[in-house]
């Protein structure tokens, strides 16, 4: 992985982390809380993808990047479902 790609990955992670923290510190009305939580989980999924792709080098291994991407995506969907469950029942 080139130094430039690593630097871009790091800046992306910093931006995504700051957005997550700002969303969590924001005082949302009750109805918007679930939307904020969903956004936070999507941001976590994006951060994990950046670490897998840039830091762990999967961007240069498409087969494995696809496999890890699918597994990570399914895991985040599971987390999202469990997070939203109390609001539905």
């Amino acid at each position, binding site marked *: *992985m*080139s*130094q430039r790609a*690593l*630097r871009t*990955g*790091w800046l992306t*992670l*910093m931006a995504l*982390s*700051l957005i*997550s*923290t700002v*969303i*969590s*510190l924001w005082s949302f009305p009750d109805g918007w*809380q679930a939307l*904020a*939580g969903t956004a*936070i*989980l999507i*941001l*976590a999924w994006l*951060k*994990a993808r950046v*670490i*897998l792709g*840039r*830091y*762990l*080098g*999967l961007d*240069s*291994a*498409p*087969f*494995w990047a696809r496999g890890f991407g699918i597994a990570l995506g399914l*895991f985040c969907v*599971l*987390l999202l479902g*469990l*997070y939203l*469950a*109390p609001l539905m*029942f």
Partner: protein
Amino acid sequence: MSEAASELSVLDELPGDLMMWVLIISELLVFGAGLTAFLAVRVTDPVGFAEAQNLLNRTAAGINTIVLVTSGFLAALALPLREAGQNARARLALIAASLLGVLFLVIKGAEFADKAAHGINWESHAFFTFYYLLTGFHAAHVVFGVLILWLVAWRDAPRNIEVGAAFWHMVDLVWVLLFPVIYLLQ
């Protein structure tokens, strides 16, 4: 081309050491199970979990996220620096990455001490059982990761740096999933 040769090419595509990936996947499964269990138990008491979560210091945890992803960047940078023959800079990057790991532990330690000072322990609520279990287990990985970074800064062959940094990235990866679930989701 035989099937065996085709499988070999797929494995060869995987960056770094195969056994390190086995370890990474194992660790991700353990933490993944822990986070799943945490959210599953939360379903039974969302109000109690939200009240307990409000006792956490989100800002400190947010700072720790910045510390850890920056540390991961420095650890990742060490390999291209070493491969370019810039050995001293590669070592410096690894040492800086490890020091940020130590800073993460200091902030985490202060967080645990603050909870203890307020009489909060792992039996206070189911939330805190998971909180101490997951963040404590992660912190133990950070300690181990710091030691590995020191080791590969000393024995700085490119392969060593690649494997050591991969472990550190796993610690980073776990945190970016653990942080929002434990600290942020309300």
